[in-house]
């Protein structure tokens, strides 16, 4: 049973306050964990996993692409950065 994965990120030119807050926390961790000291930024986006019965055929993919552009993202503030098909949902992967 295929899953279509859609990934959405805040537009690169816009401030991402959520990512900035996470980056701030990583900066504090970096004081005790040297491996994190090189982190220069974090951006937080969204990943949608759309489960389907049957085949992820061209028509379905086109419909999901349309959905990604019109509902799953808002083009004023976000970009769809990836759409791909995977055979097993992430939750089933150990």
């Amino acid at each position, binding site marked *: 049973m295929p899953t279509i994965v859609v990934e959405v990120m805040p537009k690169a030119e816009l401030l991402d306050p959520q990512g900035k807050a996470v980056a701030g926390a990583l900066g504090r961790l970096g004081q005790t964990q040297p491996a994190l000291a090189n982190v220069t930024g974090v951006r937080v986006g969204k990943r949608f996993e759309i489960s389907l019965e049957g085949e992820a055929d061209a028509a379905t993919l086109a419909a999901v692409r349309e959905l990604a552009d019109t509902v799953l993202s*808002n083009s004023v503030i976000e970009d769809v950065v990836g759409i791909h098909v995977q055979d097993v949902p992430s939750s089933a992967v150990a």
Partner: protein
Amino acid sequence: MRIGVVTFPGSLDDRDAARAVRLAGADAVALWHGDHDLHDVDAIVLPGGFSYGDYLRAGAIASLSPIMTEVIDAANKGMPVLGICNGFQMLTEAHLLDGGLIRNGQGRFICRDQGLRIENNTSDWTSDFAANAEIVIPLKNGEGSFMASDETLKALEGEGRVVVRYIGGNPNGSLNDIAGVTNARGNVVGLMPHPEHAVEAGFGPDTDDAMASGVDGLTFFTSVIAQALVAR
């Protein structure tokens, strides 16, 4: 005049908006997100809150509600529609207004009395204000930072479609200090601050005269009532 206030799952300020409508002198009509019926109202308020928990994006799921089909249709035919806070977010998600709202720049929820300048007193919801009137009404949101492409911003500014602008400092990183905008026709207005929380002495922002006596928000509602009388 009948002014509808739509309740969505997660609306918080629908009853406040209805009270503001009544205090301004119109009949408040409760509308339900799941209906396809506007109950013959003459204008519509989309109230503040956190519809659908702000899941997906603030206002995004509400903008796909059954009643929004009728709201969008009525707005496109010229019916006055006011979106307050979450309602503003819905109007941008429904493409009735340009731009979009993202998290406040400093990452914090903001709740305070906010100074604003009325930049456009020709819209259906601001026509009773004096030109460049300065007012104070509450602002309370986590995602109120107004964003738009350079091209859109130029159009909004050039066509006088910025309705209200923050004064006394930009609270959330909104481009050009924009607090609210309108469409080309001037019947659809959205703003992040809350006019319905400044309509009754004793419950509004503090003023120089007395504590909690600010009623600057009432003029949004009296404006649309006056517009309706002119239209008749």
